[in-house]
């Protein structure tokens, strides 16, 4: 039974290889993603824990570690991954070789689960590289001039950040002679010189900050995310940024807890607050729908860091819940933008103005997602933002609480604009609603945007979030 842990890595990657062999395989990709979604829910419900040494090389080999935080991230990856694939069937028809998309997409899902499951520093780097190489290729998937430009920019920034991270791993290894998370956490307690660890943290915050698009390093994101095909934009903004950027940083804050844990959390909060404010301020002025959404990703990642940086239960719970909630509503918004593009071929808000009655599903799901991201009460975004603001107040940072509240208001303003311009008119009534699979995918995600709020309520909370919160409160791996 311990071996079940390797399935979320192996199954999507095997699916990817099979798709390349058969040159078709939307069904295979979808089946692997949905079965892994089922498996990650099974892991959560049965409280399945596993610490697995690959190839049975105990203590010296590569460890895989399925702890509650990893399980929660798996749920996030495969929820959005499955529904994006469901959406992709019709959307990708206009491309010449959609099987390449499905192959790369499955590879991306498998390697992201590798990033979250791994218990080894270098293994994390390897899976991260597989993830980003697939992501660069998928951003350039349309091979138009703008897409290639965005992919090149993304690839250069991504490679520089990867090399900074690899250098940081070198510093860590030179000081503790181990790459295993548990062993590092043990050995770091009685080190003579903390200097290599300090250098490594600097490199990690820069490197993963570039990958997570925290504000001084965010320039690539608004180009790269909108250039990809819609299902890929959804997964890039919803999951990839978190798996290769946010997750490693919060995991390292647990692994290196004996190295100035409080200071690291303060840095998270400061970076989070800056990203939150600047991201939303840049987003308000955008007229390209997908670009606007991409800037909001910068801002929402700021919320996550602000919440987790507070270090108290409210903030951590809010930040973790926001990881999941943001993947749902940002994924849905990008899929909605994709279906508007599918219908009309435009991303410019000024030239939209569709009739609401002609596009009930697209409008409805976009509206739900917009309310969620702006934090309107019954929807999920409200609860996580409320918890994050409560957390900052409890930690005694009223300024940050104010920034979070202002950011939320500006988000609301920005999405009022989106709904008003995209669906405000009655001029264009001669449009047809998107095909059934796309509607089903968006409808389910919209439903989840409402229903997922229940993961904050005790009986369900115990299953999904309690363990992950414990991990971040330094209750062990």
């Amino acid at each position, binding site marked *: 039974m311990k071996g079940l842990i390797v399935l979320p890595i192996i199954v999507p990657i095997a699916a990817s290889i099979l798709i390349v062999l058969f040159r078709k395989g939307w069904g295979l990709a979808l089946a692997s993603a949905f079965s892994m979604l089922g498996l990650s829910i099974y892991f959560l419900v049965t409280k399945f824990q596993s610490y697995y040494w690959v190839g049975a090389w105990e203590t010296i080999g590569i460890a895989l570690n399925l702890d509650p935080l990893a399980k929660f991230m798996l749920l996030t990856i495969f929820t959005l991954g499955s529904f994006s694939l469901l959406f992709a069937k019709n959307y990708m028809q206009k491309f010449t070789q959609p099987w390449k998309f499905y192959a790369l997409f499955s590879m991306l899902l498998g390697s992201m689960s590798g990033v979250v499951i791994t218990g080894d520093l*270098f293994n994390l780097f*390897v899976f991260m*590289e597989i993830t980003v*190489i697939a992501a*660069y*290729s998928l951003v*350039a998937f349309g*091979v*138009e*001039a*703008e897409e*290639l*430009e*965005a*992919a*090149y*920019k993304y*690839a*250069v920034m991504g*490679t*520089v950040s*990867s*090399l900074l991270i*690899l*250098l940081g*791993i*070198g510093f860590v*290894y*030179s000081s503790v*002679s181990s*790459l295993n998370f548990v062993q590092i956490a043990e050995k770091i307690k009685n080190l003579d010189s903390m200097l290599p660890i300090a250098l490594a943290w600097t490199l990690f915050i820069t490197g993963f900050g570039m990958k997570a698009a925290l504000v001084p390093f965010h*320039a*690539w994101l*608004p*180009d790269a995310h909108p*250039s990809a095909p819609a299902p890929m934009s959804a997964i890039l903004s919803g999951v990839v940024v978190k798996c290769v950027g946010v997750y490693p940083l919060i995991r390292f804050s647990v692994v290196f807890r004996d190295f100035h844990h409080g200071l690291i959390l303060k840095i998270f909060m400061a970076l989070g607050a800056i990203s939150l404010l600047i991201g939303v301020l840049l987003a308000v002025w955008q007229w390209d729908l997908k*670009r606007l959404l991409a800037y909001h990703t910068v801002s929402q990642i700021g919320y996550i860091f602000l919440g987790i940086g507070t270090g108290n239960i409210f903030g951590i719970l809010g930040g973790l819940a926001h990881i999941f909630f943001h993947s749902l509503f940002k994924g849905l918004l990008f899929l909605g933008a994709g279906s508007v593009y599918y219908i009309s071929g435009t991303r410019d808000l000024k030239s939209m103005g569709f009739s609401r009655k002609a596009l009930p599903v697209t409008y409805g799901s976009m509206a739900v997602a917009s309310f969620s991201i702006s934090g309107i009460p019954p929807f999920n975004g409200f609860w996580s933002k409320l918890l994050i603001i409560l957390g900052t107040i409890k930690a005694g940072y009223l300024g940050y609480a104010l920034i979070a509240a202002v950011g939320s208001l500006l988000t609301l303003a920005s999405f009022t604009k989106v709904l008003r311009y995209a669906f405000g008119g009655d001029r264009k009534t001669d449009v047809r609603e998107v095909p059934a699979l796309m509607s089903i995918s968006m409808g389910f995600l919209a439903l989840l945007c409402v229903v997922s709020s229940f993961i904050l309520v005790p009986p369900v909370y115990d299953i999904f979030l309690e363990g992950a919160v414990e991990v971040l409160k330094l209750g062990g791996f």
Partner: protein
Amino acid sequence: MILYILCLILFAVGLYGVFIKKDLIKMIMGINIMGLAVNLFLIMIGYKTGGRYPILSKEELHIAKNLFSQMVDPIPQALVLTAIVIELGIIGLLVSLAIRLYEKYGTFDVTKIRRLKG
């Protein structure tokens, strides 16, 4: 110590190439130099002057304790092998993107490849 600092200077040279040079291919060369600097750094962590390979033959078993201290750490070498493969893949992807960009824009100059705002 001086070797480590030289290694980091090599890294900075690569970083300079990526962020200052205007030519797509020169940027890729900068990335390559950065990658080599990191690999060199990793190798130097495990290196010992006059060290030996970390494999024992049957005849050496009785003097194994003396040999252990002379052995080179094999893990950084394994890491570097992996890292070289990854860098090869990334450089290949970047070069193919650069070729496609050249087909579209007719230039390798980044200042002229600017249809996106960011």
